[in-house]
Structure formats: C-alpha cells, structure tokens
C-alpha cells in the first residue's frame, strides 16, 4: 500500500466512479434543481440555473437521451407548456453521484 493514501489504487478508483453525465457543471445544476422538486418548467430552470436558453436546451436534450429526465408537453390556458422532471434512474444517478462525491471529498485532509 502506498504511503500517500491519496495516490494509487485506493483513491483514484473512486474518482473513476464519478458519473460524467451528472458531473458537468451545467447538467449538475439542472439535476440539483430537479432533484429537490417534483417537476419544473423551462422558465423555472432557465431562471434558477442562469444558463442561456441554447445551453439549457442542449444539456436538457443530453439528460433526456441519458434517460435521466422526462420532458412533458402540455397545454395551459391554450398555450404550450413544457414540464421537466427526473426519472427514477435520474434520481438514483444523482443520489449515487452525491454519495461518491462525498466519499471522495470526505477522504481529503482538511
């Protein structure tokens, strides 16, 4: 076992477990907001995340392709309205990501 506990096989495999789909800052902030609510619309995500519309749209599409979120179209007062919510897989992926990050960062010295 190496003298430095933060080098070698014991520590770096944990970093390898980090889900890169979740780890991207833009997607992480989207998932974080969706994790604490049942669902939110695009305006809500746009305002809360501070992302540009193009950026938000791109990352939402990636998360949808990964199966982490579901986009639902509905009509409110005869106007189209888009709601986004986490899937069970997305919620679980976020929970695992959170635990992995806590494990990795928790092992670091103060």
């Amino acid at each position: 076992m190496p003298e430095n506990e933060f080098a070698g096989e014991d520590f770096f495999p944990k970093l390898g477990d980090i889900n890169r789909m979740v780890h991207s800052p833009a997607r992480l902030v989207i998932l974080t907001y969706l994790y604490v609510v049942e669902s939110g619309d695009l305006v809500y995500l746009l305002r809360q995340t501070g992302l540009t519309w193009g950026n938000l749209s791109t990352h939402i599409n990636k998360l949808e392709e990964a199966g982490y979120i579901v986009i639902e179209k509905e009509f409110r007062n005869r106007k189209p309205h888009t709601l986004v919510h986490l899937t069970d897989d997305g919620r679980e992926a976020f929970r695992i990501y959170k635990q992995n990050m806590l494990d990795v960062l928790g092992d670091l010295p103060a």
Partner: protein
Amino acid sequence: MEEIGIGWTLAMLAAFAFLSYGAFHLAKKHITAPRMGLVKFGMVRKKKLKKLTIVLSGSALLGVILFILILALKNTLPGWMLPITIFGVNCIIVFSLGAYFLDFPRLYGYGILYALAFQLSILLNEWFELNVNYSFPAVYGAFAGIMVVIGTVISIRFLRKYPRLSLDDLDARE
C-alpha cells in the same frame, strides 16, 4: 357616526380575504409564472407546507375569535386589553411563522406593524380621546400604506429585473 355590527365587520373581512386570494392567484398566473416559471414541489416540501397551513390556520382562527371578543368588549375598557394583547402577540407569532417557513423576512416587520396597529389605536383613543371608529382606520390605513409602498417598490424592481419570457419561443426549441 353609526357603527357597523360584528357581522358586517366579519363579512367585510371575509370579502377582503376572498378578493386578496383572487388577486394573489391572478398575479401568480399573469406576473410571476411567466417570469419565474412554474414548479411542483416535492413531497417533503408539500408536507412542510401542509403543516404550516394547519398551524397558520389555527393561529388565524384564534385571531378572528380574539377580534370578535375585542369588538364585543370594546366599550368595557380595560376589559378588552387582555384580548388585544393576546391578539397582538398572536399576530407576531402568525407572521413570524410565515416569515420563517416561507423564507420571507419582510413578514417579521409586517407582523410587528400589524400587532402595533391595534395597541396604537387604543393609545390614540385614550390619550387624545379619538373615537376608535377613527383611530383604528387611521392607524391601520397608515401602516397599510407603508406596506403598500414597500410592496410597490419591490414589485417594480422585480418587473425590471425579470422581464416576461416568451413561452412560445422557448417551446419552439424543437
């Protein structure tokens, strides 16, 4: 000046509450939602809001009962000082709970103003012999004016900071 009865007073309060509730929903639909978006809260938040609603409803009911008591005893000073004091404390508790759970610090100040209005009206009545039919509306009107000015300033800032987003544009992304 002819006094209106407790029944009419409560009916006016109920009508005002009904109108306020309607105005709140209209503002949410036409002002807040297009600018800040809509969100459905998760179960944890829903349970928390449910508990808060029960607590606030109970406190509001206590406030109404005390209000009726005050109106009924208002010609028997100092007999109505106790319900007035409890009413004031209850106001501060209700507003403080709302401020804390809704993360809405301005409500602390509004609670104090609301609670003080009753006491101040009585003091005006005692010190200057101003009829309560005038002192109550004057004090409540002044304090309500302060709240309206604060609310108006905050609303204007909000409207400037968050312009309305076109949902049609956003939904045309595909």
